[in-house]
C-alpha cells in the first residue's frame, strides 16, 4: 500500500483530523471496487469485442451504437439506474445491495465496459489479417486464433483497460449515490472511496486534506498506468 507516499506529505496531514487507518481503508475501498469492476468488465468486454470484430450477426450495428453511446453516458445517471435496481423497491432489492461495495462495483462495471469494449475492438480489428491466416494455417482452433490475436493486440487492450480503470476510479457521482459514502465510527471506510472522501472534505471546507487525498488518487492512477503499460509492452511486439 502506498501509504509512505502519504507519510511524505506529512506536513500537510499532521494536524488534520484523520489518521493513517482512515486513509488506508479509503484507498483500499477505492482499489477494491475499481479493480474488481474493471476486471469483471475486461472479462466481459474482450469476448464481446472478439465477437464484434470477427463475426457477423444481425443487430451488430445496433450493439456498436449502444457501445458508442455508453462511452459518453453520464456516470451520475448510471448511478441513478443502479440505485433503482438495487434499492429495496427495485428488481434486485431482495439482495440488500444498497450502500455496499457491490453496488458500487455494479455501477463502475457499467461505466468501464463501453470504453474497454470499444478500444479493445479497435485494437483487435487492427491486427493484420496475415496473422490470423497464419494461425489458421498452423491448425489453430478458433480459440487459438483468438488468443494469438489478443496477444498481438495486447498493447491496445492495455490502453483499453486503462481507459476503463481511469473512468472507474475517478468517478464520484454514481458511487456517492449507490455507496452512500459510509465510514464506520472507528474511521474505517466501508463505502468511502478517495473521490467521495475528497468531496466530503471539500464540503467541510478542509481543503488541505482534500488536496492530500487528491494527490494520493493521482499517484495511484499513475502507478496503475505504469504497471499496465509495462505489462502491455514488455516485448517489442507491442504496436
Amino acid at each position, binding site marked *: 500500500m502506498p501509504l509512505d507516499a502519504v507519510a511524505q506529505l506529512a506536513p500537510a496531514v499532521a494536524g488534520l483530523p484523520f489518521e493513517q487507518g482512515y486513509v488506508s481503508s479509503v484507498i483500499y475501498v477505492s482499489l477494491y471496487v475499481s479493480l474488481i469492476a474493471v476486471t469483471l468488465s475486461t472479462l466481459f468486454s474482450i469476448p464481446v469485442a472478439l465477437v464484434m470484430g470477427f463475426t457477423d450477426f444481425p443487430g451488430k450495428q445496433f450493439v456498436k451504437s449502444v457501445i458508442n453511446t455508453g462511452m459518453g453516458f453520464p456516470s451520475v445517471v448510471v448511478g441513478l439506474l443502479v440505485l433503482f435496481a438495487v*434499492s429495496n423497491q427495485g428488481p434486485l432489492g431482495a*439482495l440488500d445491495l444498497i450502500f455496499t461495495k457491490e453496488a458500487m462495483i455494479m455501477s463502475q462495471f457499467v461505466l468501464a465496459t463501453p470504453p474497454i469494449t470499444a478500444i479493445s475492438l479497435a485494437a483487435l480489428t487492427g491486427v493484420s489479417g496475415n496473422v490470423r491466416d497464419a494461425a489458421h494455417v498452423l491448425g489453430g482452433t478458433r480459440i487459438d486464433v483468438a488468443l494469438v490475436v489478443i496477444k498481438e493486440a495486447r498493447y491496445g487492450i492495455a490502453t483499453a483497460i486503462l481507459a476503463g480503470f481511469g473512468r472507474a476510479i475517478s468517478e464520484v457521482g454514481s458511487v456517492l449515490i449507490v455507496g452512500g459514502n459510509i465510514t*464506520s465510527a472507528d474511521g474505517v471506510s466501508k463505502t468511502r472511496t478517495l473521490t467521495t472522501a475528497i468531496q466530503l472534505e471539500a*464540503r467541510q471546507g478542509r481543503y488541505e486534506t482534500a488536496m492530500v487525498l487528491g494527490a494520493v488518487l493521482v499517484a495511484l492512477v499513475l502507478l496503475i498506468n505504469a504497471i499496465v503499460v509495462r505489462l502491455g509492452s514488455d516485448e517489442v511486439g507491442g504496436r
Partner: protein
Amino acid sequence: MPEQRNGGRDGTASRRGFLAAAATGVTGALAGCAGISGGQEQGNQAGVSGETLTLTTTTSTYDTGLLDEIHPDFEDMYGVTVDAVAQGTGAALESARNGDSDVVMVHARGLEDEFMRNGYGVNRRDLMFNDFVIVGPESDPAGIQGMDSATEALTAIAEAEATFVSRGDNSGTHTKELNLWEAAGTEPGGDWYQETGTGMGEALNVANQQDAYTLSDRGTFISQRSEIDLVILVQGPIGDGPEILANPYGIMAVNPGVHDNANYDLSMAYIGWITSPGTQDAISNYQVNGEQLFFPEAVSEDPNFQQYVPEGWSSNSTDG
C-alpha cells in the same frame, strides 16, 4: 477521531462469492441473506450481534462529528455496525421510504409528520435541538446585525439584494429557510439568491467565498468557524433569538409493517440507546472548538406525547 478498534470486517470473501452467485442468477435462494451485509460471522449469540443498522441522517449531525463520537458506544454494547449515510433530511426520508434504511435522524418536523402519516415511520422521539443562525460577512451590507426577527432580517437582505446562499437541496435547513421566506412574505429570486444544492458545510464555504448571507444550523457553523470569515448576525433561541429559529432533531424507526426487511429490533435498540440518559449526556458533552453543539431533549420529567405522533394529532381527529 476515535481510536482504532479492531472491527474485524473481513467479509469480503463471502461477499464476493455472494456477488458471483448473484451474477450467475442464483438470486432467489439468497434472498434471505440480509445479515450478510454485516461482514461479520453470525455467531450463535442471541439477539442482534453482528448485524448492521443503516441510519440515514442529515449532513449536520454527520459533519459536526457527533455521530463518530457517540456511535462506538452503541456498536460495542450490541456488537453491531452502524452505517451512517449523510444525505440531508429530504433524501434521508426518501431512502427510508424506499426501505433502504432502518432508522432516520432528521430535523424538519413537517416532513417527519408527513412521513409518519404515510405510515413509513413509527415510534418517533424528540432527540435533541440546536438552533439556526443567520450568518454573513462582517461588513453586513443589508444591516441585519443584531435584529431580533429572522423574517425582518431576510426581508432586509432581499431589499438590499445582498447575495444570499440557499442550500436548495430539500434538507431540513432548506425547508426552514423556505418557511422563513414564506413567513416574511417575500418571494426570493434574482441574481442575489443562489441555490447551491449542497450540504451545509459547502453552502457555508460558498457563502464565505462570495461574502454572502446564509442560514446555517449553529452546529455546522461552529464546526467550520475556523475555516471561514462569516459571523453570526442574527441569533437563534440558544443565543436569545427568536423561537422561529429553533432546530429540533427527531429520530424514527422505519415501519417494519411496510418494509419487512427493516431491522426493527436494532432500530428500536438504537432509539432506546440514543434517548437514554447516558447517551443524552454524551450528546450534551460533545463540544467543538469549546462550544456545545447539541442540547439533549429526549429525557424529561414531563411527558410530551406530541413527540410520538404528527403534531396536532389527536385520537379523534381524522388522521390515520
